[in-house]
């Protein structure tokens, strides 16, 4: 089976300075699968999701690579067509539910807008669909909630609404950008379970961006470990936890307490491991720079 989303050799730099943010990233995601993108903050894991959805900050420039969605290269598509394709087939579950809903619109239209404006549904159909979705994400009184403004709802509620909105158009790909990080610990588990449940029911492929290996183990089939914008290891979940191949992966796994000693304290990644990775990155950069200068 060929991959639904395939990222090939994607490199991105800071516009102007040329500082590398993504270093030849290649990731394949099969239809209906969940792949975790794991790394420390600044490793570029969110950047990959943003590149796929076409929402990179203007200061970031993609300099090489391909993003194939169902065989079509998003990066070599007219921007308008790309935008509509993404709108119709992909969605984002954002990180912070408090800032991801427009404060001056009611909740309902923020779920139905894509259906009505981009996919051409009738308003009544879209509203019925939104009600059903709110039901699916376990929101009581969907009709009342749809008429509320975001500030009237709790953070957990809002994240449920954003999840419902993401699934509204029955997308084939969802990018979940650290969807539980901004929430209270008690709510985190519920939301994670809800995302897993929705994903399973709708069979949506998902890129799950997180810094937390514990979260990855609960929801993903595959994962890619990133360090400084480079994929250091990509593996199936089961293989990874049995025998991580890369020293950095091993160190990362060891640093997550629940897999080693549940009572033990969090161990930082060891210095010499980091040095190994840094050396790899430096070698990669040299090669890249030569490649840039050559032709």
């Amino acid at each position, binding site marked *: 089976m060929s991959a639904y989303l395939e990222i090939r050799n994607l490199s991105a730099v*800071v*516009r*102007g*300075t040329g500082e590398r943010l993504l270093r030849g990233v290649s990731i394949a995601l099969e239809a209906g699968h969940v792949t975790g993108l794991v790394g420390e903050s600044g490793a570029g894991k969110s950047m990959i999701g943003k590149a796929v959805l076409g929402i990179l900050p203007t*200061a970031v420039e993609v300099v090489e690579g391909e993003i194939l969605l169902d065989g079509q290269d998003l990066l070599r598509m007219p921007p308008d067509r790309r935008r509509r394709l993404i709108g119709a087939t992909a969605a984002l579950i954002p990180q912070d539910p408090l800032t991801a809903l427009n404060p001056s619109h009611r909740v309902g239209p923020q779920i139905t807008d894509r259906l009505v404006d981009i996919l051409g549904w009738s308003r009544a159909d879209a509203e019925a669909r939104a009600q059903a979705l709110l039901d699916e994400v376990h929101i009581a009184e969907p009709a009342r909630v749809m008429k509320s403004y975001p500030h009237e709802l709790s953070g957990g509620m809002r994240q449920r609404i954003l999840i419902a909105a993401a699934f509204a158009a029955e997308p084939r790909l969802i990018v979940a950008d650290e969807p539980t990080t901004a929430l209270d610990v008690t709510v985190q588990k519920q939301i994670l379970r809800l995302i897993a449940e929705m994903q399973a029911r709708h069979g949506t492929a998902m890129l799950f961006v997180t810094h937390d290996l514990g979260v990855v183990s609960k929801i993903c089939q595959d994962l890619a470990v990133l360090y400084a914008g480079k994929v250091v290891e990509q593996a199936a979940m089961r293989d990874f936890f049995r025998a991580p191949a890369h020293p950095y992966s091993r160190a990362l796994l060891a640093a997550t307490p629940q897999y080693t000693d549940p009572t033990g304290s969090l161990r930082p990644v060891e210095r010499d491991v980091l040095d190994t990775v840094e050396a790899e990155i430096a070698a990669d950069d040299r090669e890249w720079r030569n490649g840039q200068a050559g032709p």
Partner: protein
Amino acid sequence: MRDGRGQIRRRAGLRLWLSGGWLALVLFGAVFAPWVAPQDPLMQDLFTSRLPPFWMEGAEPGYWLGTDNLGRDVLSRILHGARIALIVAVSAGAATCLIGATLGLIAGYFRGMADIVISRLVDIWMAFPPVLFAILLIAVLGTGLTSIIVAIVVIDWTRFARVVRAEAMNQGAMDYVASAQVAGYSRLRTMLVEILPNVLPTIGALLTLEMGISVIVEAILSFVNLSIPTDDPTWGGMIAEGRQAIHQSWWVLVFPLVTLFLTVLSFSQLGEGLKDRFDPVLR
């Protein structure tokens, strides 16, 4: 990113040079008017009335920008008019700044009763149309240079008071002010040593802006014939005369108008440019 900022920097520099250069030119013209003006600005000569500027047919040498209805040389009158414009700009601007900024600083830093009284006064002042207020004041004070300056101060102190009050309040809420007070410095010293320097860039920008406004107010008062009682040429007075004769001799209106326009624009651009350059936060 770096390129973008560099470009903004360069543009700000150009703005400073252009506006500063024009104002220097006006200052030069004002100071040396008696020596550089080609004609006596008050000399009427019906034989040379309504001469067009130098590039048009019928122009006469020595009357570069033409003459008005009474045969007075437009260029010489603009140069002499710059004197009153700049005197008003500098003295009214400085006095307004001093009074307004002091009141704003007191209201914003000391708060309490002083703030209530000053803010209420500002509210009342804001309820008057400024031009009408100015005209009314001139009617009370009588025409003349001093009256104009006093009128501008009375009307416009609120601009400084409002902005400086807000800034002083922001600064007063900062940690470094609290630590200065904990260190045992008096409130007055804190205000002058800790707050004032941080508010200065704003005051500077407002001051140059106010100078431009003063020039305009003087022109407006001259325009409604309430400026200075003598025959000394003023830009506003020239504009009022030019407005009357607009269909016969447009140059009588155009040249003082362009001078006024560039001067006012330069004052405000100079202020903005200086603020960009000296504001420690922006820099």
